[in-house]
């Protein structure tokens, strides 16, 4: 069964739970990477990502579709053309930021695809649009940080 079919058979609470599970997977992944990382700077960066995903998870748990009004941020595309690093214990902060921004981008695209699929269901469409925008917002924040630190243009 495809994700779209699976979602079609769920109610709103179940869909939110599914998204919370996905956030939890991200938290677990970054926590694992943090514990494996050899470099202190990398550990700090992974911990920041754990914290960021935890904030998303809590936001979803308190989710209120009526409160959603925000406009999506601009997609900076700073990391779109960069090579995707492979998870390892030796990742540096630059690679971690690229990896995290690309994950947010992929997740945003998945939610956008779902939003586009459920155009006939206002609640589902709004929910997935909100999720896509939220992921893009995270990508925007990560790319802003990347740009500031790694594209100093010296």
């Amino acid at each position, binding site marked *: 069964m495809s994700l779209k079919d699976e979602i079609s058979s769920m109610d709103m609470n179940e869909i939110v739970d599914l998204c919370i599970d996905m956030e939890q997977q991200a938290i677990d992944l970054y926590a694992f990477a943090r514990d494996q990382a050899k470099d202190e700077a990398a550990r700090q960066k992974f911990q920041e990502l754990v914290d960021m995903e935890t904030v998303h998870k809590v936001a979803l748990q308190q989710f209120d579709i009526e409160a959603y009004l925000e406009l999506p941020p601009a997609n900076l595309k700073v990391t779109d053309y960069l090579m995707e690093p492979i998870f390892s214990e030796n990742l540096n902060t630059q690679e971690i930021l690229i990896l995290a921004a690309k994950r947010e981008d992929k997740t945003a695209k998945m939610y956008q695809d779902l939003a586009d699929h459920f155009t006939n269901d206002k609640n589902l469409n709004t929910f997935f649009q909100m999720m896509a925008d939220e992921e893009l917002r995270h990508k925007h924040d990560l790319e802003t940080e990347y740009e*500031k630190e*790694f594209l*100093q243009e010296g």
Partner: protein
Amino acid sequence: MMRREQPKSFNTIPVKERLTITRQSMPEQDAGERSANFLEVNLGLTPKQAVIEAQRCIECKNPTCMEGCPVSIKIPDFIQLICNEDFLGAANKIKEDNSLAAVCGRVCPQETQCEEVCVVGKRFEPVAIGRLERFVADYALKHGNGSINGVEKPKPSGQKVAIVGSGPAGLAAASDLIKEGHEVTVFEALHEFGGVLVYGIPEFRLPKAILRKEVANLETMGVKFVKNFIVGRTMSIQELMEDEGYDSVFLGLGAGLPRFMNIPGENLNGVYSANEFLTRSNLMRGYEFPEWDTPLYRAKHAIIVGGGNTAMDAVRTAKRLGADEASIVYRRSEEEMPARNEEIHHAKEEGVEFMNLVNPIEFIGDDEGNVVTARCLRMELGEPDDSGRRRPVPMEGSEFTMDVDMVVIAVGNGSNPLIAQTTPEITTNKWGNIVADEDGRTSMEGVFAGGDIVSGGATVILAMGAGRNSAAAINEYLKTKVWSVA
């Protein structure tokens, strides 16, 4: 706060008339000639020009120029001494606050510091403070004895300080600490002293002979210099303190770890970091190959990715090495370039091409792994970012390729991770920079840090300011042995 005494005036020209004097131009080598040699571009003011330029100062009661200087050089005082043609006196006045005046006179971005806030500059061109600093510093190197006149050798304190790194932060700290009577030793990993000043800045902008003289002056003052010594490998910080008896250590390691873009093809032959390219040319004297044994490729088309001073140094070096074409590839427009206007202007005069609003996304190699093509995107400017500069955004469908046989990546540098790896007592942040308070105290007692290793890549004078701040704090620590981190 104590009110600063007004310096003795030697300028007899009425203020109104001073404002009619034209800012003195810096004589320089002809662009056509200099783009084929590594001799210094700027030739320095003549004594007559220096006096005329000094006479443009209107002796403000509240001189804002000093506030614009990170090491608070007594600018009005030294300018008045130039008016009196006391050039050695002027040099000594600068040396009270800045041990590397000949260096700063050449590489400081005065237009965004002292000259930016010069009162004359509000209506006219500001007084050329940087050019005057350079003039008197060069005069002193030629005619002076290297030490500050009238300052007696201090009584030995019996305390030892190790300075790790001989870049601007380390040299500034060493200069201040030796004046306090401490035994000061500078440890340098490379085979020449000066850090980024020697490996990063080309001969045509900062002749190595100038730097060597500045270092020699510090030696005359009693600073010991040890080269080819890698703290963290040759000896740890703990060993320096426990076995060698150093009472305090200052870490001025700089930001020498090159950063790449993480796009495909950056590992091809012919793709350099700016750090490697400039080190080969500057420190290893690649520009004098084959007299010096460091080969450097003579490109048909060299592109340098970036828009800062390092990018300008690299592209002008590539041109001088014989590149048929040398181009800056920069993802924003010229307006947002962080490089000094003077460097951009000189690069253009020397025939450098500027490809602005362009960003490479891949380098492609031939069968032998040599770079031959750059795939690029055109960019457009969007909303301003945190720095206030408009942000570049890729234009859909704008991709194009160009032939290249040399690429230099000049997008910035990070911190060397060696100290963080070998000294876990010293806390670093997520960027690998050492965490230190405003006086440079780290998390390890007796160890201070300053300059780019703390702040990330910045200017020479800011690194010197940090070195001086730490020197004052080290001096206080050595007197009291009280270690308090704010």
